[in-house]
């Protein structure tokens, strides 16, 4: 390793440690005024009263603060619940907003400084490490030492990284109050972009985008010389930065609903939720465009593009989840399970989630048009269950937290309902396939090993069969790592695309069907 890379690594690790420890830094002091400004009118009086004992007290850590907050708040609610006074119970969660309002200390005083020495310095350190990679070496993909690496082959470092990610997602989704300091750091940026203070989701979007950009640059280094990989990576970097991060914030600045134009139902499972529909319908021509564009993508975009190019047009070129998987997750792609058993589980799970999403949306829409009379309760329950199980636990905690444990496409492979929909089109009506080059396969296994979707590519290649699989996201890495030039991602005529009983070229004695 070059000296400058070592420096970069040290900087990154220090910045990363700073980022991880920062939430526990600083003190908290709640003022009555904050409670008044952060709570809804109907709760104001009660909240001011509930939190009375906390005013003026200085808390040395967010853990103590949040614990006291929860104690007083829960005592109030529990009393009402045991008295079955349901309409008086406060269902809103003010933990995050009030913890953020109560934060005092260095981070809230100079957020930009802390942003600089944690996230930005971390990105800088990572780039110092990444940019000199493979310098002065001939073009060519080097997977050297991946299975000797603790980080990349489920060793101790991999397990630690996975655990950190899982923990981060759990805190982010369910205990965001503990991330107050981190959110405070990005407040100025959020103010500049959308005119609003940052939420935990803005923090998440910012880190997410930065991760895609920095690790995207790593992709350029690693796969240099392979134009397909380079262009594809540039595409996911662009869509994440412009469509998922910048544009929605600018919309908010213009008093429009937050909207990601490239997100498609059912991945965007709340697209037909009533608050989203009202938001779009209440936002004039642009809002109307959001709605119509969203529906066109579902009804026309997905089938049409998938027919011509396969699901890769979305999954490995546009999608945000795919974008993170293809950049941050690339070092872990080899960890996906290739067994037939895993394939069976995959088919049940992913299509199960698709059915769940469709049913939930159907109920939601029925409820919407029936004006909330009959199905209100069912809709709410379904939304809660889906949001918790699929939206948060599966897509977030498992989807990304398991990168270093089960590979970078756990969500895309086992859970994403949009991937299931795209996959059905790709399997049954598409021009896309991975062509196997006659008899050139030597069964080495590089293609299967590096398939992030867990497709046993070799099984097809060695029998001269084209690979037509609903799960293939068309990342092109099987083709890139093949030492014998056996695999090519192609869009071509449907005729001959699926060759179930192929004949391997080269043996004239017989026409053996493999």
């Amino acid at each position, binding site marked *: 390793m070059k000296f400058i890379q070592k420096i970069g690594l040290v900087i990154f690790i220090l910045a990363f440690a700073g980022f991880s420890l920062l939430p526990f830094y600083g003190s908290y002091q709640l003022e009555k005024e904050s409670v008044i400004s952060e709570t809804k009118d109907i709760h104001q009086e009660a909240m001011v009263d509930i939190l009375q004992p906390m005013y003026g007290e200085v808390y040395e850590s967010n853990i103590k603060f949040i614990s006291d907050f929860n104690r007083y708040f829960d005592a109030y609610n529990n009393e009402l619940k045991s008295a079955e006074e349901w309409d008086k119970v406060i269902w809103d969660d003010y933990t995050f907003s009030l913890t953020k309002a109560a934060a005092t200390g260095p981070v809230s005083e100079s957020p930009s400084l802390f942003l600089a020495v944690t996230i930005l310095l971390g990105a800088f350190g990572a780039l110092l490490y990444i940019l000199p990679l493979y310098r002065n070496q001939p073009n060519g993909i080097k997977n050297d030492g991946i299975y000797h690496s603790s980080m990349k082959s489920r060793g101790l470092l991999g397990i630690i990284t996975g655990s950190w990610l899982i923990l981060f997602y759990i805190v982010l989704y369910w205990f965001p109050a503990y991330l107050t300091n981190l959110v405070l750091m990005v407040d100025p940026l959020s103010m500049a972009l959308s005119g609003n203070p940052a939420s935990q989701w803005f923090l998440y979007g910012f880190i997410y985008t930065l991760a895609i950009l920095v690790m995207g640059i790593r992709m350029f280094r690693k796969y240099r010389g392979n134009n397909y990989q380079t262009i594809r990576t540039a595409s996911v970097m662009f869509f994440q930065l412009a469509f998922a991060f910048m544009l929605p914030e600018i919309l908010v600045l213009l008093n429009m609903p937050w909207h990601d134009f490239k997100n498609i139902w059912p991945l965007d499972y709340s697209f037909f939720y009533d608050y989203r529909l009202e938001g779009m319908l209440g936002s004039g021509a642009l809002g109307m465009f959001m709605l119509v564009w969203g529906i066109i993508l579902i009804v026309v975009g997905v089938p049409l593009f998938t027919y011509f190019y396969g699901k890769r047009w979305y999954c490995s070129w546009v999608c945000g989840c795919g974008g993170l998987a293809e950049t941050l997750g690339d070092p872990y792609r080899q960890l996906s399970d290739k067994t037939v058993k895993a394939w069976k589980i995959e088919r049940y799970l992913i299509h199960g989630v698709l059915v769940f999403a469709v049913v939930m949306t159907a109920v939601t829409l029925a409820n919407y048009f029936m004006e909330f009379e009959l199905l209100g309760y069912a809709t709410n329950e379904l939304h809660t269950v889906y949001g918790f199980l699929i939206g948060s636990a599966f897509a977030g905690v498992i989807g990304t937290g398991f990168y270093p444990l089960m590979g970078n496409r756990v969500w895309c492979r086992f859970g994403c309902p949009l991937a299931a929909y795209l996959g059905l089109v790709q399997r049954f009506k598409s021009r896309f396939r991975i062509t196997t080059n006659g008899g050139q396969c030597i069964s080495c*296994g590089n293609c299967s090993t590096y398939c992030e979707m867990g497709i046993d590519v070799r099984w097809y290649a060695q029998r001269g069969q084209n690979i037509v699989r609903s799960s293939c996201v068309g990342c092109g890495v099987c083709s890139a790592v093949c*030492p014998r030039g056996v695999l090519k*991602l192609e869009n071509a005529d449907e005729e001959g695309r699926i060759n179930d009983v192929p004949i391997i070229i080269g043996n004239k*004695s*017989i026409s053996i069907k493999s």
Partner: protein
Amino acid sequence: MTGHSTISKPKHFVIIGNGISGVTCARHLRKADADCQITIISGESEHFFSRTALMYIYMGHMKYEHTKPYEDWFWEKNRIALKQAWVSQVDTDNKTLIFSDDSTFDYDVLIIASGSKPNKFGWKGENLQGVQGLYSIQDLELMEKNSQAIKRAVVVGGGLIGIEMAEMFSSRKIPVTFLVREKNFWDTILPEDEAKLINRHIKEHHIDLRLETELDEILDDGTGRVKAIKTKSGDLIDCQFVGLTVGVRPNVDFLKESKIQINRGVVVDSFFKTNVEDVYAIGDCAEFQEAPAADRKNIEQVWYTGRMHGETLAYNLTNSKKVPYQPGIWFNSAKFFDIEYQTYGFVPPIWGEEIESFYWEDSKGKIAIRILYQKSNQAIIGVNAFGWRLRHEYFDHAIEKGYHQEKVLGELGQASFNPEFYKSLHKEVLKQYNQENKRSIQIKKQSFLQKLIGSRA
């Protein structure tokens, strides 16, 4: 006299060797005959793995388990019994195998697919610790052990395994000296231009490539370990590892006491039959009495030929109408560090007057294509490609049908198998051809729409 019972027991096919030849044969036997009994015997490993992938285990690209083309349940599901044992003798009179632990095993039909083993040419010091070839899993394990904390490795022999070994060490940043007896790397197979292209690429990877250099002896450090080698020109090279990669020979020593005829390999006819009834040989260990085709050798030591031997024999063992082994258009491929190589048809290192050649190399000297064709009718007979993937189907057809070489040149775009968005080199190739031959072959234009939907035709 009463006749024997007409209900016969299903035949027991016993295959020695679980490489690509033996396993392909077993698979196709099972496909054609649901009832027969099949046993594969191997001492090297319980399960079939891809021998060509051994290098990637050392380099950390894969683990052993990734090199297995079939999951472990596959064998039981297909009722292919696996036995891990070394065969030490074959008693064809009693149709019995004798294992190294003296236990025995009966067969009805024996298929020998025992592969190869590395050559050694009686060099002084060739049995020292730290000196080895690379063929089996055991060799790989030994190499892992022998290459711990070494300062330099010497690889002897400029062939495919030699360059693989150089790449393996290079991936671990172990300095390598690569001794090649010939004038250029692998120039017994490659024409000079191509061989030189690879020479350059080897050096680009900081390998100390020594052409026209032969090993004289390997020196002992006094403890039975290698400490250096001496070349025939008298140079001493300090090293702690010597890789002997000077080709392989059929692994048939265990058959020497048997009645099966051995020359270099197990002698077979074009139906893979040996001189003994019910005994066959396929793959690297088989030696044809007559070469299967004019451009083929009597011993075929390639992955693909092993597969075809297996397919053909399985067909013959399960069909009443027997067919002789008749390979089609030759093809092969390899990867030299970062440069992929593919060849189709007949491209010898040097050719006669009746053949003409067109050779193109890119300005950086890392991509090349050569087309050989008959002078008389301009029919293509072979192609070599470096850093440029070609479509097997296209060239198999083009060479078989003897396409006019200019037709092939004009269609190089659709005959290419490079990934999407790769820079098209077709124009540059044609430019050079047109200049050299005062011709004006043009690329068939594709409409914008065809390009947009990625149409192949």
